[in-house]
């Protein structure tokens, strides 16, 4: 199973919260981790290194499509 695309941070508020650079880093990190771990459909939570921060990413894989719902530093 390979993710076909990523949907992330639909709202302007979320973009303001995390910043464009972080958004792309989180997307790439999540995609890489999903590939490495061979994640299947369903809810997921993973940690992604973004710069010096370990970011927790939550989302759902539906029919092989990764939907990132939110990301945060615990």
């Amino acid at each position, binding site marked *: 199973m390979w993710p076909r695309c990523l*949907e992330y941070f*639909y*709202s*302007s*508020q*979320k973009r303001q919260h995390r910043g464009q650079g972080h958004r792309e880093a989180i997307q790439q990190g999540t995609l890489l981790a999903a590939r490495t771990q061979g994640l299947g459909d*369903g*809810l*997921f*939570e993973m940690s992604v290194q973004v710069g010096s921060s370990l970011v927790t990413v*939550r*989302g*759902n894989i*539906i029919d092989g499509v990764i*939907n990132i*719902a*939110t990301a*945060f*530093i*615990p």
Partner: protein
Amino acid sequence: MSDLTRLEQAVMEKLLDGDNPLLQDLRKQFEEIESVERKFTGAGFFTKFRLAPNVRPLSKKSLTFGDVAATIPGLKNGAGFLLFVRGGVLDQLEGYTYGEFWPTDVPDFGLGYIVKGQVKRERDTEALDKAFA
């Protein structure tokens, strides 16, 4: 806290339920919320809390957690929530979907806890305690 929606109230009570001392302190803070400001993002919401000035902050200044999930009519994949603690006090609640638009009205919902990617009735208290340590 009458300014909270029924969903927000229920989610907060579920998030703050438990014996962990930190949860007990946060429940006390929750009783001191004076007002809220809510912003919808399209895919969810942020509800910012304003607490009474005499609230005692936690020794742990920054914390983000959220193991509560909701089933909501109209949301095929349900919703999740995050609670932000900043400066040792309750800061805001985030509600989010998994790629769907947040419904304009939430008259009915069910809540559970996310445990290892599955929604369960019982919380993984060990994981929570570890996160709070």
